């Protein structure tokens, strides 16, 4: 949901955004293995998909995400593990999600090609 404050544009990566994309909370209940990550400028789109993948990791004892306030564009992702650093789990999950998406991208490409070859007459209609 990355809309800039001035409306119609997405702030691009090399623009000096004062906020980091990824942060984590400090305080009681936060250590290397149990951590609440703050992902700025993201919402349920990434949060839910990511949570689902992290939960599948056998090293993880708990994972959940929340949107702390509907008007603030950020999510909190809580990861609790046994003996594996939480950052590593997050990293692994992101890699897994990316791999899954790349796989889907290829599958869609193949399927579109297959469909277009099977239905050439519809191509000519336009």
């Amino acid at each position, binding site marked *: 949901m990355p809309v800039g404050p001035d409306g119609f544009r997405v702030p691009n990566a090399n623009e000096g955004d004062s906020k980091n994309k990824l942060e984590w909370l400090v305080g009681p209940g936060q250590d290397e293995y149990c951590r609440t990550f703050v992902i700025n400028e993201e919402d349920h789109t990434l949060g839910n998909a990511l949570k689902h993948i992290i939960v599948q990791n056998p090293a993880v004892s708990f994972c959940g995400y929340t949107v702390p306030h509907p008007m603030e564009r950020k999510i909190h992702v809580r990861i609790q593990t046994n003996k594996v650093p939480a950052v590593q789990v997050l990293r692994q999950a992101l890699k897994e999600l990316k791999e899954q998406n790349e*796989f889907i991208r290829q599958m869609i490409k193949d399927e579109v090609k297959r469909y277009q070859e099977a239905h050439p007459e519809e191509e000519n209609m336009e």
Partner: protein
Amino acid sequence: MSTGKIVLKEFQLDQEPGSPVTSKKKKNKDKNPEEKYAGCKIEIINMDDRDLEIDFIGFHISLVNAYRRIVLAEVATMAIEKVYMYNNTSIVQDEVLAHRLGLVPLKVDPRFFEFRNKDETEWGAQDSVKYELKVKCSKKPGAAPDETDPDNLYVNRKVLSSSLKWEPLGNQTDIFQEANMQPLHQDILLAKMNSGHEIILEAYAVKGIGSDHAKFQPGLSWYRLLPEIELTREVEGEQAVLLQKCFSPGVIEIDTTPEGKKVAKVADARNDACSRNVFQYDSIKDSVKLTRKPDHVIFYIESHSALKSFEILEESVNIMIGKCDTLLAEIDKHTDTEAEK
């Protein structure tokens, strides 16, 4: 495989055990993607440039929902954003007309453009498209004296989207052809005018995303789970006709047996709207089991922009990959700085 179907009962939804919806731990690390996604399948049911019906089989719903959300909020398209109104003597107010112009879908392919920078004061060839609209309404000279239809009495009674003329900026003529820069539909009514009314304006289109304004949405997207209907006993005669009426057209068919008995059978549960009307009738409500398959998602995209339906889906997958990439780079940045300490 027990897939944990969702059972639609009369008063509640039940979940069969072994649900893929509640995520279970997997121990399939170090496998290559082909093995890992062996049970997954993507199948296009129907596709043309505007509409797409595609089945995602074996994927978790969170992923499909992410694509839906990205299509609605994050896939970029071009739309008119700024209007310079030089003259507008029509009865449509400036701001209303400007808003209507913004909603006109354009044929311009957004992938050739960049997002406009916020401090930009010039309209650059790489991030904006210029249009001009100059229309004047006047009495039609040769109109019949007893003519009452204003469409025949006046020239330019209706201002349509076809009057938006593309004005190339910079080197845009080298890259684009006029046919690819016009509004997607030529017959969108922008305003109605009377004799003597005139509209002169300049409009600039930029690239934007749906979470900023719905005019930037490339299309619509929604999904549903595959419905399944199971007849638990034979339904015949009057009851068969009643049963057929309880479902969407084409879902239940009535066969006639050689003995002349009418027997209901499920022809195509896919098209069912899952209305649960069957539970209104005590005589037949025990004869069916209605379920939905949570790992079989029917996904729809309806494009109303320059992007074709399947291109919208491809774009949304790319955006999802982009999100992962940004975060992965961010984690690497953090771990690098920590290693330096």
